[in-house]
């Protein structure tokens, strides 16, 4: 299996990546247009809902939350992969991450932005959302800092802004390359501005290294905290099926899982669209797939543990929710979620599928769907089957407005992501150079075979 060639000319790396900014395959435009269309539908649905009230989403009492919150968690979860690849694997010195962490980080940023949209879409009085912003107004009214939603807002804000900064800082050397190579148009100005005058001096590199490492260190606990705070939206409440102490780790595992699955999907798409076959190699795909498989198994374990806890603790009310999930209205979705989440990833255990692009594409999409269903299965069944039997309602089904907005968010994300990849180098040039440099050094200096694949140390 071919990995990135160690003797690849650095200049070629530059040209190859810079070319992606200019001439992607036609599919790029197809994707952009379809994403915009889907997004447009979402916007139309949201406008309709904004004018009519949330009733048109077919939310009701007791189903006060629906797909919006489920999809919100999904997008938040998706964002964790970027941190995983860039921060965790960075600390672990897994060099194979280098060609792909940039787009993973971009994914983090954009999926967080999408998640933020859902917070808004879901509000009954969107036009008053600023009430949740902590600012000292003349009435000295503050938001309620006790609310997990506010922690959420704070955590997401922190995560989003930190991710953007992290993405940006990590991109500065590459922006300098762009600046040096693109001499016309608005892009030149943009790169000049953003590269901040980076020259790659030893002082810059020295501080860069420390900063990058420090932020990576901060991002890891942050990412963990973000999704555990999202989990506490549920776990801190009293509702059966939510009030589970294992929710935070379960959510974090689910987040990494869906993030990895999304990385596989986007990996395959970018590889094709921007002609990155030489950089996003199948060897890397294999590693990502293996990583995903490992996380899938962790998630499966936590998922089963959650069921087991509910079952074994003999909390009748929570148990009823679980039974309802498995046998009631939501049963098809629930079983599909378990199937997609725990059975489908088993395909990844087979070596020959690990690098089979079509299979992995399908698998990753299924995993993503499974993880989306997981979120839905957390949110809705509890409302259908809560503490108070009188208010149970098993017939609720999201309306086309809700579906429209949910699909629209995918359009929005895809659009942002694709535009980013078109404007900014989605493969980190300087780090690929570092990678081949160190690899070639290693293979030159040390003849010990095992050491050549030091990247494997990651897992």
């Amino acid at each position, binding site marked *: 299996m071919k990995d990135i060639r160690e003797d690849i000319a650095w200049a070629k790396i530059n040209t190859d990546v810079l070319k992606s900014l200019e001439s992607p395959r036609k599919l790029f435009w197809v994707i952009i247009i379809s994403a915009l269309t889907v997004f447009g539908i979402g916007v139309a649905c949201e406008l309709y809902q904004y004018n009519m009230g949330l009733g048109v989403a077919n939310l009701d009492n007791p189903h006060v939350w629906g797909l919006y919150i489920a999809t919100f968690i999904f997008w938040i979860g998706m964002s964790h992969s970027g941190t995983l690849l860039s921060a965790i694997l960075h600390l672990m010195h897994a060099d194979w991450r280098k060609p792909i962490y940039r787009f993973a980080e971009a994914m983090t940023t954009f999926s967080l932005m999408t998640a933020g949209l859902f917070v808004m879409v879901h509000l009954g*009085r969107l*036009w008053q959302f600023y009430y949740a912003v902590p600012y000292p107004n003349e009435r000295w009214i503050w938001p309620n800092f006790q609310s997990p939603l506010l922690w959420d807002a704070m955590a997401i804000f922190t995560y989003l802004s930190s991710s953007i900064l992290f993405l940006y800082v990590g991109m500065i050397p590459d922006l300098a390359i762009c600046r040096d190579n693109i001499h016309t148009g608005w892009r030149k100005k943009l790169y000049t501005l953003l590269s901040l005058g980076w020259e790659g001096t030893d002082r810059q590199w020295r501080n860069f290294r420390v900063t990058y490492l420090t932020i990576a260190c901060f991002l890891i606990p942050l990412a963990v905290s973000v999704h555990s705070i999202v989990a506490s939206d549920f776990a801190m409440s009293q509702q059966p099926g939510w009030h589970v102490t294992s929710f935070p780790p379960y959510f974090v595992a689910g987040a990494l899982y869906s993030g990895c699955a999304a990385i596989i999907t986007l990996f395959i798409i970018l590889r094709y669209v921007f002609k990155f076959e030489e950089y996003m190699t199948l060897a890397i795909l294999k590693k990502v797939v293996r990583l995903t498989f490992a996380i899938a198994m962790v998630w499966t374990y936590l998922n089963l543990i959650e069921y087991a806890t509910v079952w074994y603790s003999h909390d009748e009310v929570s148990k009823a929710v679980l039974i309802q999930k498995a046998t009631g209205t939501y049963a098809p979705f629930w079983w599909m979620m378990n199937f997609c989440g725990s059975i489908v990833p088993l395909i990844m255990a087979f070596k020959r599928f690990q690098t089979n692009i079509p299979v992995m594409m399908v698998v990753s999409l299924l995993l993503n769907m499974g993880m989306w269903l997981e979120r839905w299965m957390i949110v809705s069944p509890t409302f259908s089957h809560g503490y108070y*039997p009188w*208010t*149970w309602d*098993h017939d609720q089904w999201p309306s086309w407005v809700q579906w429209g907005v949910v699909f629209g968010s995918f359009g929005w994300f895809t659009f942002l992501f694709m535009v980013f990849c078109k404007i900014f180098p989605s493969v980190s040039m300087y780090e690929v150079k570092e990678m081949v440099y160190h690899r070639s050094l290693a293979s030159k200096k040390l003849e010990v075979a095992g050491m050549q694949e030091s990247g494997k140390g990651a897992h």
Partner: protein
Amino acid sequence: MIDNNFDRRDFLKVLGWGGAAVALSGCGNTSIEDGKETVVSYVHAADYVIPGISVYFNSTCAQCEAGCSISGRVREGRVLKLEGNPDSVINHGKMCGLGQAGVQHHYNPDRVREPLLRSGDKGEVITWEKAYALIAEKLNGVSGDQIDFLTGTVSGHLKVLLGNYLDSLSSKNHFVYEAVSPAVQRAANLKSYGMEMPRFNINKAKVVVSFGADFLGAWVSPVHFSQQYAEFRKGVDGQRGVLVQVESKMTLTGANADRWLVVRPGTEGILALGVVNALGAAGLQLPADVAAAVKDYDKERVSKDTGVSTEHLTKLAALLKERTPSLVLLGSAAEGYAHGSENAAAINLLNHVLGNVGKTVEASAAVPYPQIAPATGNSAGLRMVNNRLADGQSKVLFTYGTNPVFTAPAELKFKENMAKAGFKVAFAHYLDETALQADLVLPLNSALEDWGTIVAEYQPDGVQIGVQQPLMEKLHPNTLGMGDILLALIKQRRAEEYKSFDDFYSYLRTALLKNKSEFAAAGTDDDVYWNDLLSGGIINVGGASNKLAGKYSANIQLPAPAERDQNYPLTLIPSVTASLRDGRNANQPWLQESPDPLTTIVWDSWVEIHPKKAAELGIVEGDIVEVSSKNGSIKAQAYLFPGIHPDAVSIPLGNGHDAMGRYAKGFGVNAFQILSRVFDNETGELAMHETQVKLSKTGKRIIVVKEEGPVGGSQQGRKIAVTVSSDQVDLSEEV
């Protein structure tokens, strides 16, 4: 305190007040809009009118016939809410949901606002002068015998005026029709107690056995009985009253019973006699003729006929024997059969045997002015009008306060017969089914805009005359009170006699002041008396004390339970719900949206089927089933209801309008339509429970719009609504 120029209605005018406008401004950004809103002040103002402070005017509720006294909360000239008048002996400041919805009768957007004359299929707006002239013209040359007046229950001075008007037309044809009325009971009570409506003292009884009387829901005077019921539950000396309900379809009262005994439809009388027999067996001394009459009603037979187990029969007899006084009530479920009168006699016999007469069944006071006593309705009135219309005897038909086109069984063909009358005048609040058939529709003031007096049939303490007075200025300038119209019409005939009365108000005032000396201290000024009267809202008349005179008859011929017709195997029980009754209030959205207490269904009709029967027929909840009697069929959603005899199905009355405005039209089905023409053998009343039906699935299924969740009324083992057995608690220690 009020000078002569003072027109009370000035102060009932709607005052546009800024404070009130807050009500509808949206929930967007809070805004300060100085100078945008208008603040209107009065031209004149009375001392008691203070903007921002509510004034309470007492009046009388006209939503049903119970005659509760209400206290309308009026602010800035608008009536906001109806509350109970605490001084009323009927409702003691309490209200039911139906009564409170009176404001929606008043503010209903679908009220008739102008006199309408039929021209083709449309109503043409005409003036009152033209309407009066038209009536005069049409009455010209028609003999009194050809003029029919079909009304709902009327009482008080309106009844007097109506009588006088008919008199002036030399017509005797005033028919009072109530689709849902205890008419059989009245006849039976007259025989058993010597009066149509004695007082039932539920609060004095230790045991109440009710044969289908839904006294907490829709029977006679529910608010009053509910209050008595509360006392009864607290008990005499801490001994909590026991309620046993006997019926084939659970009513609200049945749902509150300690023991709900489901009987085979129509066998209530048999059960009553069975209880008498069992009481005898338990050692109660029975008069010889009674003992002889019930000797065949041994437990086994009664149990076989009625479906009530011998165990419960024994327990019931033991309870009745042990705890006295008790009270046996007779309700519509027992009356609605061809042998309804016999059922009633058998049930009333039980009161006699138990010695309740004189204790818990007491004489009611006689209304001292018989001319204002209520003319109570029954279905016989409808039958007579219908026959007259069919035979062409009736040339001019006036309808008021009743909606026969809606409530008459289709088989009577009332709608078709009505067309035969030459000229039909409907006095109406809404364009209901009957008004739509009329040639001339005269718009009435709402009950909250009108003057009048109301005397209820059921009088718990003395006689209470309820005064009805406007709570606010007329909403629509071109509506008139029924009294005003009658006065105008009567002036066409007897101008001289009535010329001193400008309007019904002055008629009423004069009439009530006439008897001032009886109710006020000597020398009380007319105005003072009048104002006191209006502020009180009620006149309590002692009423001559009556004596219970009737006697039981042991000669009761009860038919054996009928064999079921194989083609129509089920009995249809048209149920009367507390809020919709016979459907005249169906256009009040609060009533449509308050769930039926037992099924929790809203905005619709349904067919109640016992789950066992449903399983047999393969019906599940939400199936649209066709209910067919020999006289037609209707389609409605099925609801599986445990509180019904498996051989019966029940459809609530009141919905299924095809007119009457946005809140009534098109919701549910009208079960009146498929009732069979079976009448009570003695009184000739329509036997409402005698319709036999069959069910067939249509294959369609919908989701029933109801309040309860998918698990129905199950608490899933969670401690939510808890019941405790009476031997565990001692209510006398409670507060």
